[in-house]
């Protein structure tokens, strides 16, 4: 049995917003990596993911820094403050997460530069339009590396919550798994939304939107398993405003897109509503999981 808390940790909107944004970046990059391996690393959909991931990762990192009580010491996460050697503790989820964010940031930076080069914005020697990283053999290796870093970025914040003694979080080892699935469905939804707004709905976007319906079934199953196995921890997550958020998340990210998926055809505009609904649901799920246990005192 975990002790109910009197000391609050104040992980609130900055934290769940960071989890949501980093999740979208990770999910979008996972889609791009899979496209790369399917030989479509240069497709408009993959390029959209390359353009999206870096700004989101940068924003997520910024939110994490601002959330620190001593933000000017953010670098202590990766550098030992006295000896200036790398600081890594593999059993500390925040330590591992900091390095993963840094690694993922670096990988998405290169992909973002590659996106600009592909658009003809500039060239760097032999790295020029028509000879880009993505779409080449090295691009596949880069995508594989990015896939791992994206997975880690999506998972670590959920694992961080499980690796606490806060009732509700410490009752489950499945939060990371739920977060990975949430990252993939919200990342996919963000890409579908962007391509639809840009009027670039091709076969890839149609396929991604429909595949996301399958993925939502997996996400829903995971959420149900997570809640069902929480035991006495359930009352700390399914409580008050967090319970409302949880129900809304399941409806918006699960039920609504599934229903809309069944009733809609291949009309491009029909992807807008499900994509927005999934994104809202993903944000509400993070809100419910993060805030629920902190609202019980």
């Amino acid at each position, binding site marked *: 049995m975990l*002790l109910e808390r009197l*000391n609050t940790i104040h992980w609130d909107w900055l934290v769940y917003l960071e989890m949501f944004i980093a999740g979208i970046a990770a999910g979008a990059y996972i889609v791009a990596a899979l496209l790369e391996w399917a030989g479509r690393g240069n497709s408009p959909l993959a390029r959209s993911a390359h353009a999206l991931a870096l700004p989101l990762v940068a924003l997520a990192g910024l939110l994490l820094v601002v959330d620190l*009580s001593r*933000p000017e010491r953010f670098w202590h996460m990766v550098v030992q403050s006295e000896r200036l050697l790398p600081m890594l503790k593999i059993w500390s989820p*925040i330590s591992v997460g900091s390095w993963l964010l840094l690694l993922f940031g670096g990988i998405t930076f290169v992909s973002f530069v590659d996106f600009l080069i592909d658009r003809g914005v500039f060239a760097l020697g032999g790295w020029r339009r028509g000879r880009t990283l993505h779409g080449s053999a090295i691009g596949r290796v880069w995508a594989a590396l990015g896939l791992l870093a994206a997975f880690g970025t999506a998972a670590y914040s959920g694992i961080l919550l499980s*690796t606490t003694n806060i009732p509700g979080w410490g009752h489950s*080892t499945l939060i990371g798994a739920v977060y990975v699935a949430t990252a993939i469905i919200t990342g996919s939804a963000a890409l579908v939304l962007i391509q639809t707004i840009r009027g670039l709905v091709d076969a890839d976007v149609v396929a991604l939107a429909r595949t996301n319906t*399958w993925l939502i079934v*997996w996400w829903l199953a995971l959420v149900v398993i997570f809640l069902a196995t929480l035991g006495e921890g359930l009352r700390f997550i399914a409580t008050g405003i967090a319970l409302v958020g949880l129900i809304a998340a399941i409806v918006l990210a699960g039920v609504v897109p599934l229903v809309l998926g069944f009733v809609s055809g291949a009309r491009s505009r029909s992807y807008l509503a499900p994509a927005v609904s999934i994104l809202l649901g993903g944000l509400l799920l993070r809100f419910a999981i993060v805030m629920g246990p902190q609202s019980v005192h």
Partner: protein
Amino acid sequence: MADAMGFYTDTTVCIGCKACEVACKEWNQLPATNGGQNTLSGNSYDNTLRLDGTHWRHVKFIEDFSPDRSQAAWLMMSDVCKHCVQAPCLDVCPTGAIIRTEFDTVVIQSDVCNGCRDCISACPFDVIGMNEATNTAQKCTLCYDRMQNGMVPACAQACPTQSIQFGPIAELRQRADARVDTLHSQGQTNAYIYGKEDMLGGLNSFYLLVNRPEKYGLPASPVLATVRTAPSWLFSAGSAVVAGLVGLLGFRKHRMDAIAAERRSSREA
């Protein structure tokens, strides 16, 4: 390395005088609550209520009365950081701000801490809190500065009944076991030691209790939070693999369908 040092707190002789709280605050220059203005909590004689970033000692007053008040006992206990041998706070701290000292105690270095607050969530005893003066996480240091100079921690020095005893852990454990034997021989068979080696590798601040741990606001089986790290990564990887397979199969099928549909519509046009 010096001998492992710690506290043995015998709750049966605590009289609730709070000299330990005052001595701790004074030595460590911890700020008073509400600027020193007295606020009554309504919870027995306990106005401190908890351990946190500015209360490193907390004397609990537990009124253990039967519903008809025919049976009454007043349990008093001076609570403090347990300085666990397997310390969850030290494990999760990403900056290395939390260290194990040469005395086997656990100390937060305030000049290194960046206030991520993960240690607060990892502590199974709800000991650590934020100190608003420094904006860092803080807790009892077991008076590391005094120990380095061969002095007894301020709280143990101030305790008038020797409820709080300080010394080498091995010696304290022998003393505590002897005290339990004495209490048992006197008929108080509910006396036991909380924080033996089977609990987080042993608590370097352990207690002699005469009721269930929960009665004192202590967890019966505190857990090292990082035991959940590996399974969490494993389940996350499983989730990713399933999603990846579903995604690949679904994407391949739906893309073929979409291309076929495009071809059909262009032929019809």
